[in-house]
């Protein structure tokens, strides 16, 4: 048989496999969803009117604002300090490596809530704060209570804790870059810092960004722990409101809706950042779709 004579065999038209399990699962899910909707509509305890009354009230908006800036400050600070800790951990200098390890051991090994309680009571540990020569004279001192602010301690507590986690994420990202990249950069006469900044970190970002997005979304929710300081963010604000109105569930659900709105916005941002750092990683030049996979 020659090429021109080749006949394509009949296209297969087989009976597809049946999936009865899918129909059962669909039925169960539909029933559960109907029950949930019915409950939301008929259960007066949600008290949607009460939620709506407070949703854009000044104290709630203030709590939302504080939650937002704490999340941003904690992530910016945590990433910056995390880069330093990761570079220390990968340094050829054993003292640097040891110091970084010790930091991680302390801040990852203790609960965030407990750390925040300590920051809230820091004046009891260090009554005075000063600048001077170690073990020598101090030039200026202040009573800690004069410098203390709940906002500062809340941000500090979150940053120091987040840095420990970010350090590990960044270190993993750096280690994921092919060592050949560093060799090629060095062979072109680049210094270690230049190689890190221009060659290694941009490639490490592809590995660093997705878990960092998770960290940021966790952080949005972990800001609620700064009630330990105490500092008036969203959850603590909701608590102060229901302390006088006794509408506990409506206020907590209202807070949840605010958290969902904020985390949804963050997910959209994360998608665009991931797409930016995927530059050059798809042979077809295809764009990444929102739910994953390439178009």
């Amino acid at each position, binding site marked *: 048989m020659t090429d021109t004579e080749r006949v394509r065999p009949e296209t297969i038209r087989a009976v597809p496999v049946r999936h009865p399990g899918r129909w059962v699962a669909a039925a169960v899910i539909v029933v559960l969803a109907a029950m949930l909707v019915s409950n939301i509509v008929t259960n007066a305890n949600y008290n949607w009117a009460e939620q709506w009354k407070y949703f854009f009230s000044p104290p709630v908006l203030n709590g939302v604002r504080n939650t937002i800036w704490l999340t941003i400050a904690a992530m910016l600070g945590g990433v910056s300090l995390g880069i330093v800790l990761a570079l220390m951990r990968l340094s050829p200098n054993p003292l640097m490596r040891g110091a970084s390890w010790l930091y991680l051991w302390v801040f990852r090994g203790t609960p965030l809530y407990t750390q925040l309680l300590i920051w809230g009571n820091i004046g009891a540990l260090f009554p005075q704060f000063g600048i001077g020569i170690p073990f020598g004279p101090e030039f200026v001192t202040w009573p800690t209570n004069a410098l203390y602010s709940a906002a500062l301690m809340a941000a500090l507590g979150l940053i120091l804790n987040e840095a420990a986690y970010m350090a590990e994420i960044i270190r993993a990202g750096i280690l994921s870059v092919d060592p050949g*990249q560093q060799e090629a950069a*060095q062979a072109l*006469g*680049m210094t270690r810092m230049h190689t890190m900044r221009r060659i290694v970190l941009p490639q490490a970002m592809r590995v660093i960004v997705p878990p960092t997005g998770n960290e940021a979304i966790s952080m949005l929710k972990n800001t609620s722990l700064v009630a330990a300081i105490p500092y008036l963010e969203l959850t603590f604000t909701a608590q102060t409101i229901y302390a006088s109105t006794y509408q506990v569930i409506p206020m907590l659900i209202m807070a949840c809706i605010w958290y969902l709105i904020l985390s949804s916005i963050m997910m959209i941002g994360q998608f665009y950042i991931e797409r930016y750092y995927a530059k050059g990683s798809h042979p077809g030049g295809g764009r990444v779709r929102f739910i994953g996979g390439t178009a």
Partner: protein
Amino acid sequence: MSDVMVRAEQVCKDFGHVQVLKGIDLEVLNGEVMCVIGPSGSGKSTFLRCINHLEKVNAGRLYVDGRLIGYREHGGKLHELKEREVAAQRKDIGMVFQRFNLFPHMTALENVMEAPQRVKGEPASVVRTRAEELMERVGLAAKMRSYPAQLSGGQQQRVAIARALAMQPKLMLFDEPTSALDPELVGEVLDVMRDLAREGMTMIVVTHEMGFAREVGDSLVFMDDGIVVEKGSPREVLTNPQHERTKLFLSKVL
């Protein structure tokens, strides 16, 4: 400029207890194309990496264009060079790797422009013109805006050669530049290297391409077990090897 581009004196390199280089003595003249062959594990790649100080030599001396590599000799003592000084020495030595090692987050043109612009600090317009010329010279004028992942192995390796040439090096090191390529792509990379040799570039090429070594090489070195077993003109070494080990190796690869 001296006549000798590379001089190796008793170069030794150990990895832990393993001696990889056991005293290499070699001279590469200005404009010479030296090919290095030998079985895997013979130390030929390690020797190449010592020349631009990607590996530190443990004993002996390496000079490129009359300058000691990696150290400063002062008052009868060797002082390690600072990172910045080592980087400065590497600017004059181009290197091409077996696995290309292009920067995947940059386009082909950006790969070529990065070092001259940001290491040497040359103005962007000058660098761009030179980079475009180089891309044309390696036959990839149409691929300047492509990312490495969109290029074939042979195209990537040609970009890697252009990237090394963009620094206007005095010496080019090739570490098995065609070993990772599909057979039908080897030719296009060797063509670029042949042109480069014709233009008078000093080159050290670690390779398994005996045809290239015979045709383009001015000298051929056979290394085995960390020493130079034989050196001579490619024709002599390939057709009339003097040592048993060379004969044995050539009988397996030719």
